[in-house]
């Protein structure tokens, strides 16, 4: 008989199976024939592969005659049937499948990838050492230092928030630099904007897999300005998965934002709760002494020395924002160079006042009322009502405090504005809020956000 091709044996076996299916019940056909195949037909002997010992036994005793008959229908000269156990292939397949499941129980090897000129996107100018520490940012600096010492184990994620120009970005870069310098790990600093645009372009060019690979390969991921994630659902989802992947592999993640997670609008709950899952630290505007120290530091960086008086007058005039502080310093230094004379403190003040006037549209009492009522979700007129309902009382106190703090109004005049209340009521309100601030209650965050909103009014005069 001519040697029969593999193709041919397959055809023979197919015919046999078709006939066997008709001859047997569905259940027994599926149980015994599904995993069999005809391995070879030679010298009148048909070799059939069966998956295990048990089915070999069964086939031999129950179906031997049937098979022989059916095989003879297909190829006449078959004299005998031999069953051979053959499970190699199926066994391999299962082991492959289970092996590809991610292992979460075994401790990973402490492998590090040497950094090879891969862009970390870090500015080496920003270091933890050059970050001026004062009472307003002590905590956040300590936490950042701790993060660099105990990567991914102590505070993960680390969430920094604070107003514009208070050093969030500096801190993020500083954390990255410290880690990159000491540990030789893959560090990456990006803004949330960059994350989003990378993701969008990955979607467009259908390279989402590469995008994921890249973002999930970092040992330390620093994401700035996460508040811009608000409302971007797909990006949030992607960030969520990236976060989970990194977190489960014990990689450090640091976020910065201009407001706390719960104040970021349109942020998905699952992402918010993850932001809040580690350590949240806020940076407050620096106090006078810190500002002074910063001015001296910056001046030194530029290689100039500043006399105490000038430094003081700059620190007195610019108090909200360190970036503006730097700008003010630059202006003073430039002016001093031009006129080649030492500036008196009055000149400095006038210069800075000039400048401030452009941007400092005054916040009005109306702005405060609008802002507070929006924040606490009240009707504006509720603040003026003669009610002592708790949900109104506190916002009213906050509004009074802000009127005193921001507008520097006198207690009686504030009282008058709030439907003729007594000045002692206003004083009481201010003391209450101050007490809360001192005991660092939730008020600190609330005020910070309110201040930020007010600033937006002030800068753009925009109707939020």
């Amino acid at each position, binding site marked *: 008989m001519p040697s029969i*091709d*593999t*193709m041919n044996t397959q055809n023979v076996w197919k015919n046999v199976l078709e006939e066997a299916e008709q001859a047997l019940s569905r259940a027994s056909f599926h149980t015994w024939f599904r995993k069999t195949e005809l391995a070879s037909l030679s010298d009148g002997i048909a070799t059939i592969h069966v998956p295990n010992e048990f089915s070999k036994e069964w086939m031999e005793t129950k179906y031997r005659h049937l098979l022989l008959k059916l095989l003879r229908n297909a190829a006449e000269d078959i004299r005998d049937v031999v069953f051979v156990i053959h499970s190699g292939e199926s066994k391999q397949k299962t*082991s492959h499948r*289970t*092996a*590809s499941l*991610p*292992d979460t*129980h*075994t*401790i*990973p*090897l*402490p*492998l*590090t*990838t*040497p950094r*090879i000129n891969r862009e970390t996107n870090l500015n080496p100018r920003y270091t933890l050492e050059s970050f001026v520490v004062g009472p307003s940012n002590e905590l956040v600096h300590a936490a950042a230092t701790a993060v660099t010492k105990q990567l991914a184990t102590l505070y993960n994620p680390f969430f920094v928030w604070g107003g514009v120009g208070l050093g969030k970005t500096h801190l993020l870069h500083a954390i990255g630099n410290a880690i990159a310098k000491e540990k030789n790990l893959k560090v990456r600093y990006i803004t949330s904007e960059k994350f989003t645009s990378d993701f969008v372009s990955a979607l467009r060019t259908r390279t989402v*897999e590469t995008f994921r*690979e890249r973002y*999930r*390969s970092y040992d330390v991921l620093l994401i700035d300005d996460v508040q811009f994630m608000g409302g971007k659902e797909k990006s949030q989802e992607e960030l969520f998965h990236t976060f989970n*992947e990194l977190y489960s*592999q014990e990689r450090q993640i640091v976020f910065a934002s201009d407001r706390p997670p719960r104040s970021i609008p349109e942020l998905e709950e699952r992402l918010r709760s993850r932001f809040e899952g580690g350590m949240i630290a806020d940076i407050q505007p620096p106090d006078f002494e810190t500002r002074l120290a910063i001015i001296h530091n910056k001046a030194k960086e530029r290689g100039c020395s500043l006399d105490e008086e000038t430094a003081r007058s700059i620190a007195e005039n610019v108090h909200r924002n360190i970036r503006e502080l730097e700008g003010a310093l630059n202006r003073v230094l430039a002016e001093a160079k031009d006129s080649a004379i030492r500036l008196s403190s009055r000149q400095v003040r006038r210069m800075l006042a000039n400048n401030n006037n452009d941007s400092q549209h005054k916040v009005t009492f109306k702005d405060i009322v609008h802002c507070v009522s929006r924040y606490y979700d009240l009707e504006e007129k509720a603040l003026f009502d003669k009610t002592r309902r708790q949900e109104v009382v506190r916002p009213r106190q906050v509004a009074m405090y802000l009127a005193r703090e921001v507008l520097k109004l006198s207690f009686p005049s504030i009282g008058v504005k709030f439907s003729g209340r007594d000045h002692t009521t206003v004083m009481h309100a201010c003391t209450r809020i101050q007490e809360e601030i001192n005991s660092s209650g939730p008020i600190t965050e609330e005020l910070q956000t309110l201040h930020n909103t007010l600033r937006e009014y002030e800068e753009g005069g925009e109707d939020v």
Partner: protein
Amino acid sequence: MLISVERNQFLKGLSIIEHAIGRSPTLPVLGYVLLKTVDNILELTATNLELSITTRISAKIQTPGVISVPYRTLGGLLHNLSHAIIELKGVRETLEINTPAQKAKIQGGAVNEFPLIPDVKTKNIIRFQNPHTLTEDLDSVLPAVAASDVRPELNGVLLEVGEEETVFAATDTFRLAVRSTKDVEAKEPKVAILPKRTAEVLSKLMRDAKHVDGHLSLTQALFTDGTTSIVSRLIEGSFPDFSAILPKQESAAIRLSREEFLQELNAASLFTSRLNDVSLTIQPQKANLLISAHNPDIGEYETAVKGAAHGQKITLAFNYRYLIDGLAGFSGDQQIDFVFVGEGKPGLMRPANTKDERNVYLVMPIRTNA
């Protein structure tokens, strides 16, 4: 093009290049095979853009030419032709296949659409004198290659050609397999990460070669035994510096018969829980290794493998698959040393009586508090 080839040879050639046949709905040409006459041989080429394989078979060339046809149609047809000699005739983009009895016409594709195979030939040839050990080394580190591509640099096999020896390594962060060989001649040191698939194909196709020549460029590699050539992309990035994590101390060690250990692990593996965990205790006093596995739904198993041991009594739990993968990488009836470093620290396997850091398998234990 008009040539005649021997059917079996042709089929063998096709089965070699099949490893590089791609399936891409957007680039159907990756499912094509390029047939090209060179002097008196027929060259078969397939590529999936990452990996390209070219092989040569002898043929009787009447008119030279080149044509590209879908692999599946050509391969499927050849399996069903029974004549020993087949005539191939290329007419523009159509390939006619004739035997005395059969006639087939396969619609091919434009030859100039077939991807160009990068030319990686360099002057610095890396010569693998003994392809058998190349296969063996690759096969023993391949199981440790990371299955996921989260970290691309771990998704392949490190090939580090040094002056003294050549090192192969792979890790998925849970285990690390390292092998070295001296059977490699090279003019200058080279480092590359071969994608997993390339390493697999290399091991499979070069098994019976006389010797294999390798050329490494920055992004591509070429391996050839004279007949078959494999050109592959290399993984960019740098492989972790594993020498830093190879343990320098040991708390306990035991010398075991590889086969006995493997057999007992296989038995214990039937009783493991979902974590695939077996618990191993080196008992220096009793000169044995206690293996136990326990699954409340299945039952439990305990066994002791005899072996000379020293150090302190220490217990670690491992994923048995990792242990079996590691043992499978050592050959035959070897004795192996199994070293425990400490709790939460890796276990280390190496052939007995060597302190060679370049022939080890490192495996991390399972968290005990998990």
